[in-house]
């Protein structure tokens, strides 16, 4: 069942690099990450690649396989023909550190800019009551393993670094939606914030993020579109519109 597979891996650092050819053994049932490990152990000990759980639960081993953003640990070798050349490259939207490892700090910076869960002040720990049906909407987004494939594939920033300061990306939008739909979160300006500070408006719903999500979260349909729709509702609500005209943004935030 084993065969010698052909691989092309991007090797290099933030300055320069190139695709390097490798031939490696492939065995039944293996995933691409197994081959990367074999290369490290036998041919390229300093080949840099991130991984942790090897079971699609931690979101560490994100890369691009034949140009498609994937988890290395969840891409089975059996999805390729034995004579296919498999090209593995680092995530394109982030700066390369070395080989398949990129600097993903952008995502952590954006996460820190999103206001945290605002717990109800009148409920003590242990007094929280929520219905399953109400928590499920947010639970879908909390399945996110932070692999950042959605961030990587999003065309707003994939080849446009200049949009990064303004745009938080799908990962952060589902966090905003999750908190917006959280039954006990006390802020009611999550959608406005997504529009005003996270760059939700840049998204034109091409659903690329949804397509690459290894957790099959319906990022566009269940998070982004509802957030956009309700922003539209409120923007055209005359009272809200008036409030926005009279108050500065920091006052609006305080009111929330």
């Amino acid at each position: 069942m084993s065969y010698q597979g052909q691989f092309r891996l991007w090797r290099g650092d933030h300055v320069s690099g190139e695709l390097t050819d490798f031939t490696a053994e492939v065995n039944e049932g293996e995933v691409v990450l197994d081959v990367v490990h074999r290369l490290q152990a036998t041919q390229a000990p300093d080949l840099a690649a991130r991984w942790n759980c090897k079971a699609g639960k931690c979101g560490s081993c994100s890369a691009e396989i034949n140009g498609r953003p994937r988890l290395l640990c969840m891409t089975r070798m059996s999805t390729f023909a034995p004579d296919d050349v498999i090209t593995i490259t680092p995530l394109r939207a982030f700066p390369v550190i070395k080989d398949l490892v990129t600097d993903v700090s952008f995502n952590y910076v954006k996460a820190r800019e999103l206001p945290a869960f605002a717990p109800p002040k009148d409920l003590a720990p242990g007094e929280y009551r929520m219905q399953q049906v109400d928590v499920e909407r947010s639970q879908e987004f909390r399945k996110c393993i932070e692999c950042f494939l959605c961030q990587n594939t999003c065309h707003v920033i994939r080849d446009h670094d200049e949009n990064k300061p303004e745009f938080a990306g799908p990962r952060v939008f589902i966090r905003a939606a999750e908190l917006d739909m959280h039954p006990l979160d006390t802020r009611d300006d999550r959608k406005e914030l997504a529009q005003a500070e996270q760059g939700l408006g840049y998204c034109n719903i091409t659903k690329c993020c949804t397509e690459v999500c290894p957790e099959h979260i319906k990022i566009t349909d269940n998070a982004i579109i509802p957030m956009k729709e309700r922003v539209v509702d409120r923007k055209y609500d005359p009272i809200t519109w008036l409030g926005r005209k009279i108050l500065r943004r920091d006052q609006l935030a305080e009111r929330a």
Partner: protein
Amino acid sequence: MTKYTRREFDVVVIGAGGAGLRAAIEARLAGKRTAIVSKSLFGKAHTVMAEGGAAAAMGNANSKDNWQVHFRDTMRGGKFLNHYRMAQLHAKEAPDRIWELETYGALFDRTPEGKISQRNFGGHEYPRLAHVGDRTGLELIRTLQQKIVSLQQEDQREHGDAEAYLAVFAECTVTQLLTDGGKITGALAYWRHNGEFLVFEAPAVVLATGGIGKSYQVTSNSWEYTGDGHALALRAGAALVNMEFLQFHPTGMVWPPSVKGILVTESVRGDGGVLRNTDGNRFMFDYVPDVFRKQYADTEAEADRWYTDPENNRRPPELLPRDEVARAINNEVKSGRGTEHGGVLLDVSTRMSAEVIVKRLPSMYHQFKELAGVDITKEPMEVGPTCHYVMGGVEVDPDTTAASVPGLFATGEVSGGMHGSNRLGGNSLSDLLVFGRRAGQHAGAYVDTVIARGTASDSAVAEGIAEALTPLGVTDGENPYQVQSDLQATMNELVGIIRRPDEIEQALTKLEELRKRASQVGAPGNRIYNPGWHVALDLKNLLLVSECVAKAALIRKESRGGHTRDDFPKMSPQWRQRNLVCRLERGGVPATERVAVTEQPVPTIPVELLQLFDRSELAKYLTEAELAVLGPLEPETRLEPSKGGEQA
């Protein structure tokens, strides 16, 4: 001399899994400048692999549950070798720790009344595990991560610097603890991304580095689990306790080979899944040990009724503690009743509708479908034991988590004592919350008592850096990956589930050879994100913890929990009174370090805690002399004289 930077903190937490993050939160809440140092990216810890849930006697599913019942179950699971005080604190505080997570934004599954739902698990008398489907660990890590972000947002508002009191050093590996006059002064670390060194200067260090699973070939653990904290503690002068006890989780994937060892959550059995051998028998009924016979069903009919009527029926034997189930599977396979890939069959497809399976076990459905091409709603899973958890760890004070070295604290899997000889499923997530909080709290309090902070001398730092750099640039050295793989094979084959003294001796000889090879490993390439170099450094820790496991396993002449001796198949009440403690004989250069094991009495369980059990049950674990504290036997509880041990 190689350049390095110094950073000053009050508390440095090593490890960013659940225990480390919870400790850091508490230290920050106490106003301490806190660093979190993590080998991986922030939020990627092994905690995400905990699937089933966090055990806490909230009594939401069964109002009879309380801390005493949880304490009892924990002690039974650990075969009474647990540090009673840790088990008591854990059982008492777990509910508060879970409820607290809701104030951080966690969204657990709910009961119809809107409370946190609780599920059944092995060894727990009542449904007790707070959960989110089968991805509870992810929920926990994300919740703690987001709480840290929210504290950083507060600091940004108040001090204009998000990292003023809580800084995360991701992809940064600690190679050494720094001490001065026997007290902690900090830690030496390198950045994985550029190989540059930094010194953390802090009077208090919290170890929260997890376990040692990477010393085994078949394991559910990731590359990170190389016993770093265990080894750091030993080299700093602290002691490890109970290192012979390793938990082999009964259900890891066995096929295809590339996924061998990956965890299949116990929730599969908690929710109704059953184990069968290839003859189609539910074999667990043949493996109920005497100590558990009262609590487990002896017919399939009763076991099946239990899921809907737990009041009037006993539990299915699939839900025995993990050590029992792992040994049973091991025996079935060895007796020729296993699958061609060396596993048994775990089936939910004939037990629940496809819809329920996908809803309750979504990540298992996903994992088998994507990695093995198996649809668990239609066919059984193939499973077998996998190295999952080390019960042993740093010996700590139960209330403060302090190790014997002043300024050193340990929490979570890296600490020892809480779980005795075997951990119950679900008790890990609650353990890391309860003792993570205590570690942060007491590390912070310790800092307040330190009058003069020590500093690490430049020469000590230079020595540590030179040692860490040794493998780099050696082009004709041993391949570190090969040494690691040989080490894993050695431990798997010779100090595995069933242990024989001659094999353990062999393992110790091999470890000696591996130690020599490890001192000659070479890592081509430079310091920038160089996995070969990282593996070379991890090897030293793996070797040291493997030596602890093997040496302690050779000494303990009984079978208990995660330690099964072929030549001593029974539990011994005399051995229950003894802990094995590992220390480093000579510190300093790794080539000369050796582990010394000594015996030490297990702390005496107070009478009021013993009284939570039936005397007849205690008689299965304790000696006659120990039972005497309970007073003379009542006529109705008089039993046959203890045979001095039970089949483990």
